[in-house]
């Protein structure tokens, strides 16, 4: 690593790293532990593999309500029924399995209440449900009528709008990735976990602490009552939880830099070793998150189901419109801050040429600290927005990471505006590629990753990257 400190630090950095990791782990266990242990008491105690899900439909007001008494059968590869589950009042069902493997799940249509039907009647049997050892596998049976597409909708423009939304979310997540690379040279593979953390923290405040159960922080003070902090209305809303999440993830980014990356920089760890460290920590964080939050997909309560607003050639849910406008607002603010403010100029200067910036009197370590805080905060925000559009699960960030890399490389590693442009293109590409009938829609992410490889072949420095020798 490009270290400016010629004398090695006396304080044993490894000790701080280990302690830091333990603190982070314990913190997560302490904070998330009691709440989640309670929430998941339906989970398979004793059995190691389970398959389950939630059968919900919307009532007339658009609320999601669980359907009780639906029977589901789990069938193994040889066609034997290995278990049967019946949904409870919340529509939740769970079947314990004898072992990991590939199963199929059949929803017995006869047991559905009158007036309720599967969205796609042919999908009452889900085949190829893979259950990994020691995990719970969630299955989804969509209920109710398929969204009827309006005559005015032009598929291409609809996909473009969806792509813009996805691209903006990727952009928000990847600006930090790109700036951290630009200022420290670190290819941070653990950036995806910041995204997951953001979504999860918001979930915790929104659903668990904001739920009906009171929660006392180490028993010291009891600030949550009736799901509201100090009884203030609105503190259980997703908007509040999202704001808290940005602060928490930003703080985490600050700590992460302080405990792990700063000591490693001072130690003079090579960039390659640092890259491997980030991969190791990525796995570690990912499985700590799985440990805490279990394997199933989760959803925020607010803005869960909305009816689409017809916008002429395309239609969007109100939350999508909010996400698009809000992301543009945030990204413009970030752009203006980078362009106009002293801190922003310093960030760009350090990303451009670290040594020159330092000799001009810029406090490089302080700039790096702020890059980590803002980068992590933006990634956390991206996680909340991504969780609103899809679902929240322990691997969401890691899945997004490769798309972030595709976007950042496309735009030019190390440049903030390149990350923005590249991510937007990747998002649009992923959605638009399904226009072609010959392209399997389940492979749309493959297309985005393939463009990453192609870009490196044609223009390795990316769209906005300066042509420099990177080989």
């Amino acid at each position: 690593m490009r270290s400016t400190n010629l004398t090695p630090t006396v304080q044993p950095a490894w000790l701080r790293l280990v302690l830091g990791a333990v603190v982070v782990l314990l913190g997560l266990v302490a904070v998330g532990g009691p709440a989640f242990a309670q929430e998941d008491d339906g989970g398979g105690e004793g059995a190691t593999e389970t398959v389950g899900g939630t059968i919900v439909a919307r009532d007339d007001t658009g609320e999601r309500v669980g359907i009780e008494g639906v029977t589901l059968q789990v069938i193994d590869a040889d066609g034997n029924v290995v278990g049967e589950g019946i949904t409870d009042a919340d529509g939740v069902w769970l079947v314990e399995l004898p072992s990991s493997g590939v199963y199929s799940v059949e929803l017995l249509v006869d047991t559905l209440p009158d007036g309720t039907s599967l969205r796609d009647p042919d999908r009452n049997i889900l085949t190829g449900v893979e259950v990994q050892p020691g995990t719970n596998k969630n299955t989804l049976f969509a209920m109710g009528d398929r969204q009827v597409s309006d005559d005015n909708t032009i598929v291409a423009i609809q996909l473009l709008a969806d792509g813009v939304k996805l691209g903006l979310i990727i952009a928000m997540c990847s600006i930090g990735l790109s700036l951290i690379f630009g200022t420290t040279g670190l290819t941070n593979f653990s950036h995806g976990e910041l995204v997951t953390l953001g979504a999860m923290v918001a979930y915790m405040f929104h659903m668990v602490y904001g739920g009906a159960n009171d929660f006392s922080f180490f028993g010291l003070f009891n600030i949550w009552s009736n799901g509201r902090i100090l009884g203030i209305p609105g503190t259980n809303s997703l908007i509040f939880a999202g704001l808290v999440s940005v602060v928490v993830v930003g703080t985490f980014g600050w700590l992460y830099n302080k405990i792990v990356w700063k000591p490693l920089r001072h130690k003079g760890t090579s960039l390659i070793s640092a890259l491997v460290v980030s991969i190791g920590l990525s796995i570690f964080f990912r499985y700590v998150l799985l440990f805490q939050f279990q394997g199933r997909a989760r959803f925020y309560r607010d803005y869960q189901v909305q009816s689409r607003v017809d916008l002429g050639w395309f239609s969007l849910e109100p939350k999508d419109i909010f996400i698009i406008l809000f992301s543009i607002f945030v990204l413009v603010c970030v752009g203006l801050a980078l362009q106009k403010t002293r801190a922003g100029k310093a960030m760009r200067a350090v990303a451009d040429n670290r040594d020159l910036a330092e000799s001009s009197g810029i406090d490089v370590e302080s700039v790096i600290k702020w890059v980590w805080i803002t980068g992590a905060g933006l990634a956390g925000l991206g996680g909340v927005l991504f969780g609103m559009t899809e679902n929240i699960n322990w691997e969401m960030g890691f899945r997004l990471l490769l798309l972030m890399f595709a976007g950042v490389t496309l735009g030019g590693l190390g440049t903030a505006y390149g990350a923005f442009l590249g991510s937007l293109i990747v998002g649009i590409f992923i959605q638009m590629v399904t226009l072609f009938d010959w392209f399997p829609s389940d492979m749309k992410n493959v297309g985005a990753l393939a463009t990453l490889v192609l870009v490196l072949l044609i223009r390795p420095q990316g769209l906005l990257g300066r042509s420099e020798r990177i080989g």
Partner: protein
Amino acid sequence: MDWVAIIESTFRGLIGEQFIYFALAAIGLNLHYGYTGLLNFGQAAFMAAGAYGMAIIVTSIAPRLNDDEGIFKLSISEGWMFVLGAFFGVVVVPVVLALLMGIPTLRLRADYLAIVTIAVAEIIRLTLRSPRFDWLTGSSDGLSGFTRTFYDFSPFDPSGRYFFNLFIGNQFFLVLVGWAVLALGVVLCWLVIRSPWGRVLKAVREDEDAARSLGKNAYSYKMQALILGGMFGAVGGMMRAIGFSLAQPDNFITDVTFFVWVALILGGAGKVFAPVAGAAILYAVLGFTDVFLRELVANDKVPDSVLSGTQVGQVRFMLMGLGLALLAAFRPQGIFGNKEEMALDDR
């Protein structure tokens, strides 16, 4: 606490089939990273190449060649299809994959190679999963039924137990064959590294520009190393598929690559024996913690709120991740490696 089960599991990790698969893949990765300095984070793709190269030929292609309704109406015996499958899995597919991976990236800086190899490995896995190619790859269910020829050679009673009751017959045969292949691999790696060709690889790792100025085509040497190391990975993946009697896309997720990396760095990159030792130690540790934690949970030594049976499998990944990070930060040369040899700089 069932200490016999814990010791058995540890010992099995030390010498058993998991160790063999990952030691083979780690030998390949050692050629990439330890000797040539290539940051290959797509070793799982090479393992998948070995598994699927075999499985596709024997399970998907053979019936289409041989059947009366097939295109060619050939009559190739299953044994020969197995040999052809092994050739495809170990030679043809890894070479194609290495070219695919290497051409866009081997000229670039190391971190680009890391990103692209991870991306290619995911592209391969998602493509194998896609229902579009179900007829060829069996999509997410994968392919099975390609191992009969292999196990037909087994002299052991399939239902008998062998070697301190650790392995059943077929497993024991697989482990013995695996050890033979592993020994062959180590010798081959040792010969390759002390040849002039191996010395050029080290030169490329140490200073690519210097190697180039001496008239060595660094790009070509890197490609050759990628191909050879990929073949080792493919052998490991093929053995793994034979061991599972199943080639399934999700057996080759990115985490598999990371396990190979931990095995390599634990042993010490740049030493012939190190990946083998690293894999043995890694799987002994994992075998121990897995059963030890399960026993703790089963005997109510830890409260369920701290650790439940479901979560034991996740602890192994946490240990793996933390181990990789700590090793890379504080002992990049591993247990047996040599610090001077592994003083990799960014390039």
